[in-house]
């Protein structure tokens, strides 16, 4: 008998927990806040910027620790700086659009 009561209590507790979102009052809309396609494009730009900046950081570190020689460093740093600048400019343009 005790077993059945405990089992029933577990079931009731589960039902209450599952029903909570419907029982609690909320001013929030019932529609899920999902990332829009515009948001996805912004996300891609931020990823691009972060990637370019961390690549520059890695290149500096690899150069300082001797994994990359001066010739390679000079060849690689230019395109990476340009990529980072382009990503930052693209983000600035998005920011300008928003404002």
């Amino acid at each position, binding site marked *: 008998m005790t077993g059945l009561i405990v*089992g029933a209590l577990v079931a009731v507790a589960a039902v209450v927990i599952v029903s909570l979102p419907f029982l609690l009052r909320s001013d929030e809309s019932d529609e899920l806040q999902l990332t829009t396609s515009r948001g996805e494009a912004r996300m891609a730009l*931020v990823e691009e910027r972060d990637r370019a900046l961390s690549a520059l950081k890695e290149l500096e570190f690899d150069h300082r620790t001797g994994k990359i020689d001066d010739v390679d460093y000079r060849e690689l740093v230019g395109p990476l700086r340009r990529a980072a600048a382009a990503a930052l400019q693209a983000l600035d343009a998005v920011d300008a659009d928003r404002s």
Partner: protein
Amino acid sequence: MAEVGRAALVVSFALALYACVAGTMAALGRERRLADSARNALVACFGSTLVAAAVLATALVRHDFTFEYVASHTSRDLPTIYSLTAFWGGEEGSLLLWLLVLTGYGALAVMLNRKLLSDLIVWVVPVIGGIATFFAFMLFAVASPFNTQTRAIDGAGLVPSLQNPYMVAHPPMLYLGYVGLTIPFAFAAGAMLSGQTDERWIVATRRWTLVAWMFLGFGQILGAHWAYVEVGWGGYYAWDPVENAALMPWLAATAFLHSVMIQERKGMLKVWNMVLVAFAFNLSLFGTFLTRSGVIESIHSFAKSSIGGWFLGMVVVSTLFSVALIIWRLPLLRARTKLESPLSREAAFLYNNLLFVALTLTIFWGEIFPILTQLFEGVSRTMGRPYFDFFLRVFGLPLVLLMGIGPLIAWRRTSVHALLNTLVWPIAAALAAGIALVIAGAGSSTPGLIAYTFSAFVLATIVLEFVRGTRATGSVFQLVSRNRRRYGGYIVHAAIVLFVIGVAGSSAYQTNEYRQLRPGDSTTLDGYHLTYNGLQRIASVSESGSQTQYRALLSFSGRAHGTLATSLIDSSSLGPSHQVGIHTNWLRAEDLYVILSQRLDGNAIRFEILVKPLVNLIWIAGYVFVFGSLVALWPDAQEQRRLVARLAFARG
């Protein structure tokens, strides 16, 4: 109490099913409250499974033999700690542990990421819910630990070899690993289902993958140590299907942990990463099918059971689901950048991935070969140790070498000149080590010599990386704290090197002899002079049956002095088992290992005597591996802030 356990499992099943169905409907219909309700169901599912687990644990500790499971796996004279470990000593209990860990991990991962990754989480919940539904169904309908019987006077007991401290920790560690791989899989599936295949799922699950990988790796080391001290065959890894079942997903997860860095740095290999994460998860299911279906022989106790077919069905469904998702989302997963040079860090990672996957597939083939030959030829032919050892060398040794070369190559590209410059010291160290080893007599085994030389090379590169990095940043503390992931990874590499040295030493350079001795007889092996002093016979009778222990006492001198004992235990209910005698000689970094193989006529005993150099490095490597993993997975506030900022910007 059994009915409470049964009721809790039915509730767990209903909640998991609800999380799956309601979660899918919420994601499709974009309904927030329904999505929150499904998420709550997953959390509640953990709660109800915890109740079921508590019921079983209580029954085990109280020796409640009305539970069939308790009667089958414990006995009155079993110490409490081992009564509790019987929780995962049998099939039904281990399935319950699986569900408990799965729902616990799932609830935690979903709650921690509910705000940052809300659009992914709505799809992660039904995926985890679907997997939990399968396990909850198995537990209440196919293999319930709550079946009852008329109260028995005593239980059958736990196999003596499982009554070992390593067995207390080894199975739960493996489960934490196996089940942990569900989380990255669920997030990857969530990313594909939601179409949000940016980096967030990787950042969110990197630590989950590392945790699962760490537990799976360390669990295997503990299992190997248990086999070494308890099983009594003189080794620690037998390429048994159950062992391989844990190794395969670990190898796939190792490949994933490396290749994911290329996606983060270069936005490449998105498809490959999805394939790897699905591969690792499906391998953990496939391993369970292999070891429980009875289709292949295994030394593990629950090898033959009724759940194998269900697991095969689950593997098929899960694999088809993964393949369909990846094909559907191929346009989103295509990379926009290319490999710039075959001599770059990303290329080294790629080679490492190919070797890891090749090794995994080789083991996989070795596992399914007996099934295929049984199916097509009517005779089961198994792949033996030489097959696995051969491919371990073919793919494993280049992997060790790459572990040294990879960190010295720069991202994007490195010139041959720069690479040779950085490789000078490690190559010199490797050559010096190789020559010293040949002079010391290690040339007797070519694979052993190669393994040692490569290990010296890798250790030299790790030291070089720390020295150069410290010079560049000013202090080693700053170096590690600035990039815990990289330097934690190097510590893990050092652990792998210790492991390789331990395996090479204890297998390629071990001495192994059989000797027949009577009381008072002596023998000499590898500098140890052993004397057999006599046999003790210890008989005991309990309600679970009778047991006789034959304990041989030996003394030794020479390279070290001392005594050791080795036993043969004959149990009427559990069959024969061995207890080995081990003396660790720390000065010479080797183990003297004696097995009582057989009692012969006229008081004679057949002993197997082994001297195993460097074997203890394997166990030490396990702890270094955990330390390195913890350094790598320690939370990074900067990374978290970057993720929050990205999301805030994306949402405008």
